[in-house]
């Protein structure tokens, strides 16, 4: 009987230790043996949340790249629009050779701006460099008269775009190449158009200047197309960001369900366990004491 009583007391003590641990850590599962299947799932869920956070970081990195690209495109568009209004001005019959020369000077400035924008950096990469991050996309060669003589592309025949992982199996392109941006239509090139414009102005050829206008219009249209594409990618990325927020919340809830202990429930249980324990002790004292030894008068 004594053995039985001792065993009971030890059981209650173990139960108290367990409940206490749950209250102190807030966790239902401290060791896999507490609930093996749930423990395994918890690990997988934690991995998944971790992965989600990483995708979030990836998307944010992509977004900032796309954002920088968007800004650069804006600048290029601005240059193109100003070139167009200069072309309009220069095609006017009223203007004379000197006037045209002055406009040509401004076009040269635009060219320099364009090269500068084309060579813009983002972190340690060139925005329009594709995977060739060591190579400046365009090299500008100065002429003897203080004007740009040539703009030479430095990149390979076909550039590769950069992809990032936005989700499982979701590779998304986050860069534009120089070819995507400055070349369009049938072998047309934005630099080429501006050089032609400058030449026509220098030649004081109003007709030729007028012929540039439709080409600039085409350039603008192409630019709009590319800008829209980048804009769409940015929207998609933001959408994926929101989605992953939702998924994160759902996962966190699930982890809570599996792994956390309901504090109120745990504390209640702990109290019950302590009462049980005291009861066991008291019963033990009462059960063990009486014995015939006390009653025999020898």
């Amino acid at each position, binding site marked *: 009987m004594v053995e039985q009583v001792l065993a009971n007391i030890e059981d209650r003590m173990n139960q108290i230790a367990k409940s206490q641990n749950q209250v102190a850590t807030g966790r239902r599962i401290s060791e*896999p043996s507490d609930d093996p299947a749930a423990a395994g799932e918890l690990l997988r869920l934690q991995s998944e949340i971790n992965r989600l956070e*990483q995708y979030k970081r990836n998307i944010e990195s992509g977004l900032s790249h796309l954002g920088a690209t968007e800004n650069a495109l804006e600048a290029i568009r601005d240059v193109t629009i100003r070139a167009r209004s200069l072309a309009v001005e220069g095609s006017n019959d009223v203007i004379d050779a000197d006037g045209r020369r002055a406009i040509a000077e401004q076009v040269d400035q635009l060219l320099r701006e364009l090269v500068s924008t084309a060579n813009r950096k983002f972190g340690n990469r060139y925005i329009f460099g594709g995977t060739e991050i060591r190579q400046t996309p365009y090299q500008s060669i100065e002429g003897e008269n203080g004007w740009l003589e040539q703009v030479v592309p430095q990149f390979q025949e076909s550039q590769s775009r950069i992809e990032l*992982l936005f989700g499982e199996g979701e590779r998304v392109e986050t860069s534009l190449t120089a070819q995507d941006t400055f070349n369009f239509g049938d072998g047309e090139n934005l630099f080429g158009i501006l050089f032609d414009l400058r030449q026509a102005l220098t030649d004081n050829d109003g007709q030729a200047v007028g012929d540039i206008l439709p080409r600039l219009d085409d350039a603008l249209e192409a630019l709009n197309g590319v800008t829209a594409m980048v804009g769409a990618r940015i929207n998609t990325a933001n959408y994926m960001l929101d989605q992953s927020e939702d998924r994160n919340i759902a996962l966190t809830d699930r982890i809570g369900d599996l792994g956390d202990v309901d504090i109120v429930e745990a504390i209640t249980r702990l109290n019950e366990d302590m009462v049980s324990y005291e009861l066991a002790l008291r019963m033990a004292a009462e059960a063990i004491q009486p014995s015939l*030894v006390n009653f025999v008068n020898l």
Partner: protein
Amino acid sequence: MPTINSTLSLAKRALLAHQGAMGTSADNVANVDTPGYARKTVDLRPAPGLHTTLGGYGNGVDLLGVSGVRDQFVERQVRSAMGEAGRYQTGQQQLQMVEEILGELTESGLSNALDQFWNAWHDLANDPGSMTSRNALRESARHLVNIFNNIDIRLNQQIDNINSEIIVKATEINSITRELASLNRDLALTNGDAPELVDRRSLLLDELADLADIDYRIEDNGVVSVFLDGASLVMNDKVQIIGTELNDNGNAQLVITDGVKRTIDVRGGRIGALFDVRDGEIAELYSRLDELATTLTQEINSIHVNGYGLNGFTDINFFDPETTGIADFALDYRIEEDAALIAASMDGNAGDNQLALSIAELEHKAVLSEGTETIGQAFSSIYTWFGAKVSEADIMAEGAELALDQATAWRESVSGVSLDEEMAQLIQQQLAFNASAKIVNMVDSMMEQLLGLVR
């Protein structure tokens, strides 16, 4: 016909018998806590009577002997329960220690390290031209390697401990069997009737049963023979010592030289559990973790060698290709020296991140368990499997302890000393003694009467 004299000697015999009985009760009370003690009863028989034509006349009581109360069937049950309890308790303890080594649900676990490792590849993909992301990647790889190596070290320690424990327990068995052999000699001399010797024999058999799944047989003269895995450990006063030597894996095994040397396969008791855990659960855990490490190495290397590092070098391994498991899992020595050799690019350009993307995507590729599990899933499976083993061990240990409690209670009820019972008996015996003393008094005064007749 009984005379005064014969009545006197009858009363004297009664006094002696009841004194003896009281002495035995006192003996029982004194030994109420002694382990292995079986309560003694006295064998009181009517003394051989006188048969005359006028009828049979009794001659009082004789105390013929004192013996311990034991039921051998109950004893066997208890020992069998002890073996089970010893086995499952030890198994539970050992498995719980290994569970701690795996220590997953904290940040320092393997699962977390794997997650961080994949993260680092993503970060490299986001910024393939930088040394910063390569340094960070190398650090997280080092961390992963450390965790694997560490698990190996601690598992090895556990195995060493188990091997030491096996040797210690074997020594314990030997000291018990030696004592049993010499006890057998004394038991044979007393024909198994001496209660103290029988008590000692019982205690020693209990201890043996707790350690291993022994078989034993008690002969009519009290001598016990003990066997383990068919080998004789104790036969009369001869004992065979259990030796230990190393097996092919460098682990301890038990041997006995019975003419020919053979190994002993222990399946029960504490020693049985030690072998079970060492050669069963721990061995399997090792093999599954080793597979994880080698697969990780192979999968990553097979992609990495095709890529280009920061300075254009190619054909470099990421992990040491000579890895055989968690013990020697390591980074390739060239990556250890120079993080710039970490490849992110597939086309040779520093800004290309295709390789880094491919490795990051490995996380979701089912490369283990015949193409059904990713690395993360395989690990979580190992974790669940092991957790279930520990949980199972907990349940078995609890059940075995319960069974042992019941069996022990049963034995107690047969052989244990109940103070209440002894008290009641003492009262009876004292009354009987007093009554017999009164009879002596009466006979004495009758004698006086008689003598008074003759003057």
